[in-house]
């Protein structure tokens, strides 16, 4: 079932985001990442880091306490509603240097808070290639506003990075 590409938004400043969504719809944008509090997707400070090998493209969000950047790339890209998908994920220091997967524990999940439910499946997180996590088996089974969560645990401290994925 192929249900159009989603819009991906950072959680903060919803009003600002809606305005951007509106603008992008009018110009026919298919997929958008808006990161109000974190470095933008094309920020040279991030893109210039030689350590970033994979995902070669994708979306970057900042964790809620600012301790990490998370870069993720959906497979397939764009995400499709009610279709199984995977995410390639890299966890980075705020300066953009990639953290090896054996240094942190990553948990990925998604929910529709306005509906009071999450996904019906638990994705599996495995390490791919030393510095890339593979989140296997995400299923956004309904259209609407989803929140995507990445919980990063390092040295017994857990920090969350999150963004909104809107499936029209």
């Amino acid at each position, binding site marked *: 079932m192929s249900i159009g590409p989603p819009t991906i938004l950072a959680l903060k400043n919803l009003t600002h985001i809606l305005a951007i969504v509106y603008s992008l*719809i009018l110009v026919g944008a298919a997929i958008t990442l808006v990161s109000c509090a974190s470095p933008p997707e094309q920020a040279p400070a991030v893109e210039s880091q030689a350590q970033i090998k994979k995902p070669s493209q994708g979306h970057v969000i900042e964790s809620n306490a600012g301790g990490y950047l998370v870069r993720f790339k959906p497979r397939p890209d764009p995400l499709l509603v009610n279709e199984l998908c995977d995410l390639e994920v890299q966890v980075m220091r705020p300066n953009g240097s990639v953290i090896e997967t054996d240094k942190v524990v990553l948990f990925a999940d998604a929910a529709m808070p306005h509906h009071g439910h999450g996904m019906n499946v638990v994705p599996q997180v495995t390490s791919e290639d030393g510095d890339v996590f593979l989140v296997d088996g995400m299923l956004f089974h309904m259209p609407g506003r989803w929140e995507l969560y990445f919980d990063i645990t390092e040295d017994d401290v857990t920090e969350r990075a999150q963004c909104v994925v809107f499936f029209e």
Partner: protein
Amino acid sequence: MRCFLRIAALVVLATPVVVVVQAQEDGTTNSAPLTPTQQTRLRRHANLPALSVDATNAYANREEAVALGHHLFFDPRLSGSGSLNCTSCHDPNKAFTDGRKLAQGVGLINRNTPTLLNASHHRWFYWDGRIDTLWGQALEPIESPQEMNGDRVAVARLLIQDKSLRQAYEKVFGSLPTPSEVVEWPAHGTPRFDRPEERDAWASMSAEDQALANKIFVNVGKAIAAYERKLLTGPSPFDLYMQGLEQGRTTLPEGMTPAAVRGAALFVGAANCRMCHVGPLLSDSEFHSVGIVGNDGDVMQLPGRFGGVQKLQANPFRASGSFSDDATNKQAQLADRLVVGPELWGQMRTPSLRNVALTAPYMHNGQFDTLEEVLTYYSTLEGAIFPGHHQEAILEPLGLTDQERADLKAFLISLTGTPPEAIYLSPPAAAEDSSQSATSSSSQ
């Protein structure tokens, strides 16, 4: 939910262009406006795609398997009494339902019979999703004591001993043992816990014989599934309407009325039915509680998905089980990764709305006789019970006007597709013979 609706409303209101569809209704010209957003959303619900490969069933697309499954579907000898077959509940003349509030097999079953039309597009089967393979679904009623009350040993014996079935089976699945090789088998046997006598008999069989009976039984399911994959409906008036829009046509096809167009706009707009009835199947094939209670009480008696997940994970005929022809594919792995928790209590699978006008009565307990009653329920949610605060909360009374309910009903009627190929709607000649001989012998 409210926030979502506000967002959706913003998107709709922000779009300045409106498409006007001209239509003839009762000799007058009517216009039914669809915004581009509505068109985009509706496009995603139109035109069922080609059926995907079923990797768990290597025989799913074999015509010989279809022929065997077609025969077995109509063969009452699969049942314990020899008087029931798959059509007892899935009657081709009733859109592969039974028209009953609750299904009636050997006993009364506490759920309404879902249609088999387009069932092969679903991810999970049964109202509670207790199985994830079409062939596994086909096997469950055969052995259920409330449904056909047959058993796998008797079914395997039938395939081995009946000359016609044996030939048809061996064309697809390879050689069967000779009747003399299974002469020591008990007449009946199954490992099911709810069939104690047959379970004892099953336990008396050698592991080798059990494996053989299981293999034949599973192949019966795979053949029936191959047949059921043919039970696809063709384009509906709604599909043709959407195709017409793509090609710039402004006239409505036969069966698509201006009221149906208005209903379609509501479906993806204010009524927001698309939240669960999403995609070309008009079902997310997932599970939700819509507040429908049991037939004889005011609490949700059926565990729904809560029980379904546990049954699925224990079912040997699941996609990731040892009888699957591809237990490693991504879809197969889903069953082992399902969330299990109290929020699943009472959740039932979203039914497809394709051909819904043909499949009354409605809801998992057959509570509503008509589409009008269903729409009135969603309009008011009168009598709805939601069992706990951990449950999803996506329903609010829609407060539909009489006109809106009529429009939505017109849209639902427009989802009726052309029937499957006629040859699949009646028994093959050989099955008619089997049916007559079974009826004749049971009446003697």
